[in-house]
């Protein structure tokens, strides 16, 4: 159930000692990373965690929904192609959530190159997307602008 537990435990220390000087990381909002590819998820987690974001990883749509209410993420990075419930379905359910749906920002991680795909994403309520294959700085920038937007809308 918790194959990454020790890795996680070790890594938690990194942001607090590393970026501790900024003091800002304590207030960064939580992010839920959803990707059925464990390597991908792990890369994203490491990259964002070093930047001080509290990260929770889910490896399936079901796990993402199960964790959603507990994590209460500000931003969800959501892979579209997953077995079982895919990213679209997860996004739709999250956006309709009675209390969290209004504030959560959902970023789809997928190649939305066609007009039709983007229109579909809009219809389902997605806020942003990161093109796959993504590079990490773009991903971080996308996360950041959505967190900024979420905070602007909350205030």
């Amino acid at each position: 159930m918790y194959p990454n537990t020790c890795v996680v435990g070790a890594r938690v220390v990194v942001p607090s000692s590393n970026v501790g000087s900024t003091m800002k990381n304590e207030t960064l909002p939580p992010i839920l990373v959803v990707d059925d590819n464990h390597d991908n998820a792990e890369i994203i987690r490491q990259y964002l965690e070093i930047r001080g974001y509290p990260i929770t990883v889910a490896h399936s749509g079901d796990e993402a929904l199960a964790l959603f209410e507990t994590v209460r993420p500000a931003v969800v990075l959501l892979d579209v192609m997953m077995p079982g419930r895919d990213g679209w379905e997860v996004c739709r359910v999250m956006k309709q959530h009675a209390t969290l749906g209004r504030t959560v920002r959902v970023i789809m991680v997928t190649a939305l190159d066609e007009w039709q795909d983007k229109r579909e994403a809009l219809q389902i309520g997605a806020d942003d997307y990161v093109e796959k294959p993504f590079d990490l700085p773009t991903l971080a920038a996308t996360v950041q602008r959505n967190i900024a937007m979420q905070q602007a809308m909350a205030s």
Partner: protein
Amino acid sequence: MSESILLSDSDDEALEPAVQQLDGWRLERVMSAELANAVAARPGVRAVVVSATDPTLLRMVVERAHGCGVAVIVSCADDTARRRAVELKVEEWYRCPADAGEIAQRIRGAVGRGSPKAQALEDRAERVEYEQMLHDSLTGLPTLPVMIERSRNLFKERGELVVLYLNFVRYSKIEEIYGWEKLDAVLETTAAAVREFLDDTALSTSRLMVSFTNDDDFIFFHVPAAGVAAATDNEITEMVARLQRHVGGRIEAQHGEDIAALFDIYVGRAHVYYNPKIRLERLIYRGIREAANAARSIEERERGRRVADLRSSLRDRAVYVDYHPIVVAETEEIFGYEALARGVMRSLRSPEVMFDVAAEADLVWELSRLCRARAIEGIETRLQPHHLLFLNVDPHDFSDPAFNENEVKYPERVVIEITERTAIKDYPKFRERLRIFRERGFRFAVDDAGSGYAGLGSIANLEPDFIKLDISLINAIDTNFIKQNLVETMVKFSNDHGAKVIAEGVERAEEFKTVKDLGVHLVQGFFLHRPLRLPLPPIAEPAKR
């Protein structure tokens, strides 16, 4: 039923009242060090609230609790504690200090969710989904199955129930024109207004419940109080009239006149009597169907009246035109006006309604001719010489023999807007007609561009001079990066094809700034100008904001 035990190492005083808010629960406090053992050792423990900050201890408690199906709630003093709690996949957490209400809610949530060991993740995901089906997230109103459960006993007791079916017509039209986000917002307004109305309605001797059918209709259950007769037809008619005024007023205040003009309610009613031989749900569903049919037949009747209204409007030429300014994004100078034809009669105020009625009665060409003629009159009397007139023309109008390139005196000042939404049947012939108009000096705009899945290919085919973005792309564009991306694509496409992009439906400063930053050339919307209405002084420059 035996008592459920909440175990905790916290000395938070709010815990006690929180537990009292839960039914059949008892709080037991233990030392942090004993928590892990106590979780497993005591029967009846269903949840544990942990305040200890020691990570090893916390992990032990979580493992032990999840091993025997006990839910874990972490009381977090800071962000580190919260992060740790989430990483350990506890059922719930709250930030300390929290009030008793919140704590109780978290405990309830955690227990409902169960431990991940005992229940598969799938179940938890499904529960999230199911819960949403019980209450509509937009309106906060219960859905029908919930309402039937709630009224079951009351209905049995009183023996009768009145079902009111409120058919909010043309909400689907709002969605078609403005996109689902707008309709969501309108529904939210509607639900709030309905609730407000119910709170101080006169039928207070009885029980009124409201449900939302997840489309655009509302259902009221009215159960008369004991010994009181159910509301009469007159009372209900009167109530509906007041409701219509109330909701209509709210919608106009929050979403403007154009949307309010689309708004109408038709109410159907059915009286259901309790019958022990028949399943109660079925009785109620039948009542709902009956009430819905009644609402529909009222709508039919109303439609007949509207056709008559339209015929007399055509005879009297009772159509007037609003001129909605289109401005240059950079300078905010007026570039031109879109002519919006409206019926003089109240029932035909909205152009969408008017054209719908015309389509039903096969009067589209006649109505189009009248609207065009009225709009063109304004070129000389209302517009300054350098202003363009944007004229909505349905592609079908091009088959109207009365509509030809010589109809207009100043073709070079007219931009013909063709909506992307209407399917064009005979493409080569249509393009040939366009060519003739173009040679006369007319220009063309594609209206509602990007509303469908089609993308840019079909737009390129029409070689437009202007591309008018669909309102749904502009609505809240400042907060949605996908919309921004789409509009950016559209601007680039226009620049490549020598066309100009118009953003319509700009209602807020943020939207205006965003489209301007994205390079949109022209802008139209309430944020800049409201439509100009007759009577006006001739050739008047509208007042600046």
